[in-house]
C-alpha cells in the first residue's frame, strides 16, 4: 500500500517527532515530497522508523550556513512513484556535533565520514570517524565557506610531506602485519592493482586464503568536483559532468541538464529529448561493454576484452560523430544540446543494431553459458535484500538481488514513460546474477534505441539565450545511470554559481556494500565481486 505508507511516515513524523519546520513540496518541481527539520536528538528515532518502513538512505550531506550547519538526509523507497523525503537537523557551529545514525543505516557510516572529512562535523558514537577522501594528515575542511583555498605550490609541498611520511614505512598506517596466531594476516590490495579498476585500495584481513574482513580505502582519485562547482558558473560545470563517471558520462550530463531545467522551470523540445535518450542508451551499452571486458579479464579470460572493445569502438565512432568526443562527453546544454546530430547518425545507428544483436548472442554462448565462468560466479558475493536496503545499493547490483527498481520506469524523466522496455532483474544477488542483469540491460537499451531511432521529430536544438543564474531554492534530481541512482542536490542562492551541489554517486554506496559481500570468500573471489560491482573510482571519490 504505497500511498498508505507515505501517509504513515508523514503522520508519524508530525505526531511523534514534532518537527520544528515542516514543508510540503511539489515533487515535480523540487524532487522531494516533503521536508522536515527535526530536533537533532530525535534523528535516530526518525531514521529507525524510516528503516522500519522500508526506506533506504539515498544521501547524507551537509550545508554550511552562517549561523549553523544543516545536515540533510534523503530517504527513498523502492517503489513507483518514488517516495523521496528530506529530513534535516540543525547543528550549531559552536557545538559542531550531530548524532550518528550509522548503527541504524550501514550506509551512513561512510556518508558521515565524508561529511566529517569535508565539513568537520563530528558524529557522536560513530565507530570509525576518520577522514575518507582526503589524506589522514590533512588539516583542512574544504567545503566550509570559510575555507578560501590553498596557496599556490601547496600541492607539491603536501605531496612531498606525504612521500616523506610514507618513507617511514607503508606498514605504519596498517594494522600489525602478522598477528600472534600467524595464520591471520593483512593483505593490501591496491591502490595500484590491475583488478581494482583504478585506484581503489582494499585492506583484507585474511585467515589463510579466506577473507575475514575487508575495508575499502578510497579517496585516491578525489578531484574536488563539489568545491570546484561552488566557485564556477553553472555553464562551466559541464566538463565536470563528463569526468565524474567517464564511462557513462551521458547519464551525468542528463542529470545536470534535468536539475537546472527543473530549477529554472524550462522544458527542452521533443527532438532534444529523443536525441538525449538515444545517446544515453548507446552510452549505457558502451559502459556495460567496458564492464564486461574488464570483468572477464579479472576472472582470467582475455579474449572477451578484445571483442567488447571492438564493439565499444563502433559505438564510440557514432558518439564521436555526434559529440566530437570519445569519452568525456559534455554534449547536453540547459534546455537543449550542444549541436544537432549529423545526417549520417541515423544510418550508422541502424547499421549497428543488427550487428550488436548478433554479438550479444555470441557473448551469451561464449560467456554466460561457459561452465568455468558459471562455477567462478554462481553463489559468490551474495547481496541480500536486507543488506541492499541498509547500504542503499542501487542500479544493476540492486536489480540482481530481486528488486526491480529502475528510475527510468519508477521516477520517469524525459520520454522514458512513452517507451516500451523491461526492467532487467535476477533473483539470487550473486556475481552471476549481476552479470545476467547487465547483459539483459544491454538488450533493453538496444530495444529502446531501435524503437525511437526512426521517430526523431523535427525541432529546435536550443532554447536560445537563458538567464545565467538559477532561481533561489533547493532542487533534487536523480537519474538512472549505468551504475545506479545518480542524484544531484542543488541549493541555489540565486547567484551565478551553486551555493552547494551534492553529488550522490551510485558506486559510493555499492562499494560500501562490498564489505558484507566478501566475508568468507577467497581472495580471488574478492576480485570477482569487485568486478561485478562495476565501480568507477573517480565517481566514488568525486
Amino acid at each position, binding site marked *: 500500500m504505497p500511498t498508505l505508507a507515505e501517509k504513515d511516515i508523514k503522520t508519524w513524523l508530525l505526531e511523534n517527532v514534532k518537527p520544528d519546520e515542516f514543508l510540503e513540496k511539489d515533487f515535480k518541481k523540487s524532487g522531494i515530497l516533503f521536508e522536515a527539520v527535526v530536533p537533532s536528538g530525535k534523528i535516530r528515532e526518525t531514521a529507525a522508523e524510516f528503516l522500519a518502513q522500508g526506506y533506504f538512505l539515498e544521501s547524507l550531506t551537509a550545508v*554550511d550556513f552562517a549561523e549553523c550547519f544543516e545536515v540533510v538526509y534523503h530517504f527513498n523507497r523502492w517503489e513507483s512513484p518514488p517516495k523521496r523525503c528530506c529530513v534535516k537537523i540543525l547543528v550549531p557551529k559552536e557545538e559542531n556535533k550531530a548524532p550518528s545514525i550509522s548503527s541504524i543505516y550501514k550506509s551512513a557510516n561512510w556518508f558521515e565520514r565524508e561529511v566529517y572529512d569535508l565539513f568537520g562535523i563530528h558524529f557522536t558514537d560513530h565507530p570509525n570517524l576518520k577522514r575518507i577522501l582526503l589524506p589522514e594528515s590533512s588539516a583542512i575542511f574544504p567545503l566550509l565557506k570559510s575555507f578560501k*583555498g590553498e596557496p599556490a605550490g601547496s600541492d607539491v609541498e603536501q605531496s612531498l610531506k606525504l612521500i616523506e611520511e610514507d618513507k617511514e614505512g607503508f606498514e605504519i598506517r596498517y594494522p600489525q602485519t602478522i598477528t600472534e596466531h600467524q595464520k591471520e594476516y593483512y593483505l593490501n590490495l591496491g591502490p595500484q592493482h590491475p583488478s581494482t579498476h*583504478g585506484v581503489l585500495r582494499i585492506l583484507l584481513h585474511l585467515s589463510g586464503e579466506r577473507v575475514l574482513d575487508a575495508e575499502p580505502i578510497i579517496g*585516491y582519485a578525489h578531484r574536488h568536483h563539489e568545491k570546484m562547482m561552488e*566557485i564556477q558558473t553553472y555553464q*562551466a560545470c559541464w566538463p565536470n559532468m563528463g569526468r565524474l563517471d567517464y564511462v557513462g558520462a551521458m547519464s551525468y550530463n542528463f542529470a545536470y541538464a534535468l536539475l537546472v531545467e527543473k530549477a529554472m522551470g524550462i522544458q527542452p523540445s521533443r527532438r532534444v529529448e529523443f536525441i538525449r535518450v538515444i545517446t544515453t542508451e548507446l552510452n549505457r551499452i558502451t559502459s556495460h561493454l567496458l564492464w564486461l571486458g574488464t570483468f572477464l579479464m579479472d576472472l582470467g579470460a582475455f579474449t572477451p576484452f578484445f571483442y567488447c572493445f571492438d564493439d565499444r569502438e563502433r559505438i564510440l565512432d557514432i558518439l564521436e560523430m555526434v559529440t566530437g568526443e570519445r569519452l568525456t562527453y559534455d554534449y547536453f546544454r540547459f534546455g537543449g544540446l550542444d549541436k544537432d546530430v549529423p545526417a549520417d547518425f541515423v544510418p550508422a545507428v541502424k547499421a549497428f543494431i543488427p550487428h550488436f544483436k548478433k554479438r550479444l548472442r555470441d557473448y551469451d554462448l561464449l560467456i554466460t553459458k561457459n561452465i568455468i565462468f558459471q562455477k567462478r560466479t554462481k553463489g559468490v558475493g551474495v547481496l541480500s535484500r536486507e543488506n541492499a536496503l541498509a547500504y542503499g545499493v542501487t542500479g544493476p547490483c540492486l536489480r540482481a538481488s530481486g528488486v526491480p527498481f529502475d528510475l527510468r520506469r519508477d521516477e520517469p524523466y524525459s520520454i522514458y514513460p512513452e517507451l516500451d522496455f523491461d526492467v532487467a532483474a535476477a533473483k539470487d544477488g550473486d556475481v552471476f546474477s549481476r552479470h545476467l542483469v547487465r547483459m539483459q540491460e544491454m538488450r533493453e537499451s538496444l530495444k529502446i534505441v531501435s524503437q525511437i531511432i526512426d521517430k526523431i521529430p523535427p525541432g529546435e536544438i536550443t532554447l536560445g539565450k537563458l538567464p545565467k543564474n538559477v532561481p533561489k531554492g533547493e532542487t533534487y534530481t536523480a537519474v538512472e545511470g549505468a551504475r545506479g541512482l545518480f542524484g544531484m542536490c542543488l541549493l541555489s542562492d540565486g547567484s551565478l554559481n551553486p551555493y552547494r551541489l551534492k553529488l550522490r554517486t551510485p558506486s559510493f554506496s555499492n562499494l560500501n556494500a562490498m564489505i558484507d559481500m566478501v566475508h568468507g570468500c577467497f581472495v580471488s573471489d574478492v576480485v570477482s565481486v569487485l568486478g561485478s560491482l562495476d565501480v568507477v573510482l573517480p565517481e566514488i571519490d568525486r
Partner: protein
Amino acid sequence: MEINPKELELMGKTQSPPPGLVNFFKVEDVFNLARAHSLWPLTFGLACCAIELMAGGAARFDMDRFGFGVVRPSPRQADLMIVAGTISRKMAPCIKTLYDQMPSPKYVIALGGCATAGGPFKYPGQYGILEGIDKIIPVNVYVPGCPPRPEALLAGILELQKQIIEGKAQGRTSPAVVHDSQDNRPAEHKNAISRAEFRKTT
C-alpha cells in the same frame, strides 16, 4: 659519441660524464636501440585517461604492433610508466613508490592534461590534486588531450622511442610553482549566507 655540454645542461644534467669508471658510448647506443624496442609499460591507471590507455591496448589500436604491448602488473618488471589521469595528493606518494620500485633505466609518459599540469581540475586555490606529475618524478614525453586519443598515446610512445635511440631520454622535472598567465578564472570563494534569510526568501 660527442655530448654537447650545453645540451646536457638543458636536460637538467650538470655533470657531463655518466656515472661509472669506464663508459662505452657505442655499446650504450646498442643498448638504447634494444631498450627502445622492448618497452614494457606498467599497468596503471588513475582516471579517465586509463580508459583510453586500455583502448590503445585493445583490438583497434593495438599497441602491440609497435612492440610495447607487454603490459606488466608489477613495477619491478616494467620500464615505462604511463601516468594516465589526475594525480590526487593522496595518490602522489604511491606513484613515487611505484616509480622508485621500477628498475633503471626507466621512462615516464605524462598522458593527458592532468598528468601534465593539472588539467581541468586546476584552479587557483585547489586543494585536492598535484598539478603535474613532473613535480615529483622526471617526465620524458607529455601527451596533450583530455583525454588524448589512443593515436596520440601511440605517437607519444614513438616519440619516446626516438628519444631513447638518440640517447636523450633523461626526463625533466618542473619547478614547484608554475605561474600560468593563461589561467584567468577568478576563484570566487563565497561567504556563508544566513540560513534564516535564505528560508524567508524561498
